């Protein structure tokens, strides 16, 4: 885009025109991202929308979190057919929200963990983080563009200036100082803007973790889900930089790299887990204390959200480990959903084999390849 602006600027023989065009383009793109971002993102990741009876457990968990957060409208739920472990939320306002989860993650998590992850996503929606991060990235882009064009002005201006100063032969020193200051500013501004963007993103992640603990009253659920997420480094194919802040964990993290540096949209997972485990209760206050205990320094929760009320952690989880679907059952459930969403029909034969009938299968009957029984399609 900057290049387009650059060449347009060359064509008009004026850097100002280029700058205006580039910023206009940027604004248009941001508006598109804001109004159409959710459908573009969901379409790009080939996410499939599910109905309540496609995956009752997932649907129920999201509905539980919708109730706990006091969200007015039930968000749409999508499944992405990808073995990577991740989940994200999107939608510019709480009434048009969607949450998506990869099939890999859906298989891996038990009910409590799923609840923690969905609470995290719903709180991104509830805290209007999608809007906030969109605004921040527009601002960031504008600063980067301005700095880029500023450097071009400076370069051109510097050249003409030096010609003039050599002809007049005075005032070169002052001009040089201004030049150096401007140069430093132009180099540093985009870097700082970027760092601030990442810092805001990290802060919103902490806030979403804290909200997740508050909604579920059970920080351990999210903590153990995050541990499972940390163990996998498979990258999500459909992620991109602009949407990274919306995911539960950074979709670009690499193995062995401790992503605790300043240029990450997410805080390191191990630290998030430690904070959640250090919580003495489930309130924002408790999260803030745990944060200070783990990281030191100031807290992370905005002071206005801190209340003195005590919120105990739920000791009795209604769904015990016993009645829980195990790994194999969850895997089977999830793959059933994925087949069904691609319009395959599943027939279970009496011999225990499962036949997946593709949507373009036209015969009225099908024979089980395992035992030879015939089934009506």
């Amino acid at each position, binding site marked *: 885009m900057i290049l387009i602006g650059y060449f347009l600027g060359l064509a008009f023989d004026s850097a100002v025109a280029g700058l205006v065009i580039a910023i206009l383009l940027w604004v248009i793109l941001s508006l598109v991202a804001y109004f159409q971002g959710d459908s573009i993102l969901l379409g790009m990741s080939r996410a499939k929308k599910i109905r309540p009876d496609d995956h*009752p*457990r997932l649907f*129920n*968990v999201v*509905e*539980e*979190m919708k*109730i*706990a*957060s*006091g969200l007015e409208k039930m968000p749409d739920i999508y499944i992405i057919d990808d073995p990577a472990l991740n989940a994200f939320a999107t939608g510019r306002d709480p009434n048009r929200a969607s949450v998506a989860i990869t099939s890999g993650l859906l298989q891996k998590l038990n*009910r409590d963990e799923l609840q923690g992850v969905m609470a995290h996503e719903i709180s991104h929606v509830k805290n209007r983080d999608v809007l906030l991060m969109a605004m921040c990235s527009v601002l960031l882009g504008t600063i980067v563009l301005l700095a880029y064009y500023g450097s071009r002005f400076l370069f051109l201006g510097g050249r003409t200036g030096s010609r003039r100063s050599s002809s007049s032969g005075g005032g070169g020193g002052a001009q040089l100082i201004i030049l150096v200051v401007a140069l430093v500013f132009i180099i540093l501004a985009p870097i700082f803007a970027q760092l601030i963007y990442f810092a805001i993103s990290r802060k919103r992640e902490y806030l979403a973790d804290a909200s997740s603990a508050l*909604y579920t*009253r059970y920080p351990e659920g999210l903590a153990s889900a995050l541990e499972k997420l940390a163990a996998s480094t498979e990258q999500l194919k459909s992620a991109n930089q602009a949407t990274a802040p919306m995911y539960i964990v950074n979709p670009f993290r690499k193995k062995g790299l401790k992503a605790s540096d300043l240029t990450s949209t997410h805080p390191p997972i191990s630290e998030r887990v430690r904070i959640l485990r250090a919580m003495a209760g489930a309130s924002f206050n408790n999260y803030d204390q745990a944060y200070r205990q783990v990281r030191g320094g100031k807290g992370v929760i905005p002071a206005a959200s801190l209340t003195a*009320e005590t919120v105990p952690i739920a000791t*009795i989880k*209604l*769904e*015990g*480990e*016993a*009645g*829980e679907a195990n790994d194999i059952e969850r895997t089977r459930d999830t793959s059933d959903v994925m087949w069904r969403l691609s319009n395959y029909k599943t027939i279970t034969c009496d011999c225990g084999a499962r036949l997946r009938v593709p949507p373009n299968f036209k015969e009225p009957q099908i024979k089980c390849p395992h035992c030879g029984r015939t089934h009506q399609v």
Partner: protein
Amino acid sequence: MIALYVIIGVVVVLLIVLWFLYNGLVRLRNQVKNAWAQIDVQLKRRHDLIPNLVETVKGYMKFERETLEAVTKARNIALQASSAGAGERAKVEGELSSALSRLLAVVERYPDLKANQNFLALQEELTSTENKISFSRQFYNDSVLRYNNQTQMVPSNIVAGMFSFKAGEFFEVTLAAEKEAPKVSFTQ
């Protein structure tokens, strides 16, 4: 003349403050009402699920007539109390919860039941409904706390008194009933 303007100004400012305080109170009160409607929806859902559950379980459980009857009875009592206030309802729903938990505790003795697809679907629904009840209760109580704080704190308590905003009632489940909240785990 100036005094008149000052008086008019003060009155206008007071009216604006009153306007904001009143609207704030109305918003909070509506949130409480809304949250209460949520609990109501979930409690109704549980009432609707129970006959289904009893029907599914009956065939398998020959020796648990008393437990089943206790659940049905608690449901009927809860059904009759469905237009009562928060305190009264919390009590009867708490009793229904403990009757349910007793039923679900004995389910573990019947392995056939645990293989029943219909029952497994019911189990998920019941687990989720119990969760939704407790989450909506959680949100309701938070809303009531916010609303009550607002009606009791200066200066909005004056407005609350003027337009008779009454304090909301918490939906408290007694500790004993909470401990007995249905443990919806059917397998071992």
